């Protein structure tokens, strides 16, 4: 079935078009809106955005592939981004990532054994003074300790419904 926005998001999308002198400028905000609903930017989403903006799918794909926030493959319901850039790295970024790898049973670029989390390495997230830090979905978690990481993961895992086993394609997603 072709991709469609929910009525509420569709209204939001209509409003986005009033903000700019061109249709095309809505591209990135609209992609965000679609990904929020769909979890990732599938071919159906690209088709939908292209039609709505009057662009070719190649044009939209060109935009999608440029930006790291758009997932080009399915991801777990929760995505953990651990900052590994210098300010975080000298305050424990690697230790935080290693702890998460052990805890989730997967490497960066993969999905956890229980299918609930995708683990990613991030670049500087503007929280350098609160290092080490990570982003989990829409939240930034800062001044981390290993105990704090466990607490955060426990809380989010408890709220996430049990997932089907991660699709085989996830292992292939290791290369970012």
């Amino acid at each position: 079935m072709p991709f469609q926005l929910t009525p509420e998001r569709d209204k939001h999308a209509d409003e986005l078009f009033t903000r700019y002198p061109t249709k095309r400028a809505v591209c990135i905000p609209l992609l965000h809106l679609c990904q929020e609903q769909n979890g990732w930017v599938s071919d159906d989403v690209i088709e939908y955005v292209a039609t709505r903006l009057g662009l070719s799918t190649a044009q939209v794909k060109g935009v999608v592939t440029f930006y790291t926030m758009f997932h080009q493959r399915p991801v777990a319901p929760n995505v953990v981004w651990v900052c590994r850039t210098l300010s975080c790295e000298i305050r424990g970024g690697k230790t935080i990532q290693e702890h998460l790898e052990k805890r989730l049973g997967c490497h960066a670029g993969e999905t956890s054994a229980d299918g609930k989390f995708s683990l990613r390495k991030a670049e500087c997230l503007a929280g350098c003074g609160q290092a080490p830090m990570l982003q989990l979905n829409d939240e930034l978690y800062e001044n981390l300790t290993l105990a704090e990481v466990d607490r955060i993961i426990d809380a989010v895992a408890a709220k996430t419904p049990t997932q089907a086993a991660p699709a085989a394609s996830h292992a292939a997603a290791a290369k970012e």
Partner: protein
Amino acid sequence: MSTIDTTCLLTDRYALADSFTYAVAEKAGAYATARKVLTGMQPDAIKAEVKAANIRGRGGAGFPAGVKWGFLPPPDPNKPVYLVINADEGEPGTFKDRTIMEKDPHRLLEGCIIAMRAIGAHTTYIYVRGELVTSIKRLEQGIRDLRAKGVLGKRPFGIDHAMDIHVHPGGGAYICGEETSLLNSLEGYRGEPRLKPPFPAVSGAFGMPTIVNNVETIASVPDILKLGGAAWSALSRLPNDGGTRLYGVSGHVKNPHVFEGPVGLTLREMIDLCGGMLDASRPLKGVIPGGSSTPVLRPDDLVHAPDAAHPLHAWHGKSHLDVPMGVDTMRNLGTMLGTCCAIVMDSSVNMVEAARNLMRFYHHESCGQCTPCREGTGWLAEICDRIADGHATEADVELLVDVSNNMMGNTICALADGTAMPMLAFVRKFRGEFLAAAREGGVKNGRLDQAVVPLLGGRAA
């Protein structure tokens, strides 16, 4: 601890409970200046104050904002002027603009209103890094509140100058902080920088005259108009670089954070204001003064300026860390002020590993349009890998210098220079460490976080 007058203007509402809400900000003075300026001053008079303020752009390049505003062509009814706020904060080590957007978004919005009046714009786009969800939400709520109050709309404060502000979320790409890349991204394209000229002031967003300014630059505008440009400028310790600004310190200090101070604090004062070094047993080794694109400084390097005409003569014989942080002083020191957010590294940091971490970043973030940048960032990352992992010879250290030199000066944007200059400084100032790694089979213990592992609650795995 030094006694520094950390004058509190830009940050004076940060500590209030719910400081980000319209009600709290307004009660604490937000929009009083905008009202006075819009109802009582002509655009040229506003521009004159900003020029007198000597405010140097806070986004990294340090260009005087008042001069930039003067580059706009004469008003043309067929050419709307846009104000675009660069809120893409992504320069490693930099975490200051986020504090404005999260703690006092109304200061930025008030600045936008005054700036739109000054430059004749009716629309502002605030391009916020997509990852900064709290910043986006708070700005959007602020904009909704302003529309409800009529502060944004057809007649802000009753004057005939319609205004609106939109938040535009980015897609996650460091290069989109470069202003022309940001404009392409705003227009819905890949964030590839544009050739300049034309400069944005002439042909920017949607081909129209556009002023692009950093969050902090515009958030300073209300205080400039409140105090008057000359008085605001005089808060600085330096000439031609006015006011107060945000300082950030990350890395191996006791209390890393963002704070406000007069322009011209020294790196040593910044470290003191953050409680000093994290652990007295591990001395300071190097400081990256203003974001990862600015060349590293060493505490034991001394200013050599015996000639009385040298701009740094007043600091002759002093440590690089005792020179005031200003756009011009840092340039004269061979580095850059950048974003004024310093990364402090103690003796636990191996500089080959530090350089490798940053070169990987730049390699990942190069947009690939220019061959010297695309290839150069890749080579630098790879050579750093080789040296750190023990697959290099001493000649590879010189290769880092050659590759860096070939990257500079002939690319579309400043990312290439912002990679090559710090690389050169790492090699020049820590050559012994690079040569040792090349000679001795790599970096012995390459972990950059070995010193802090106990603070995190033990080593994992």
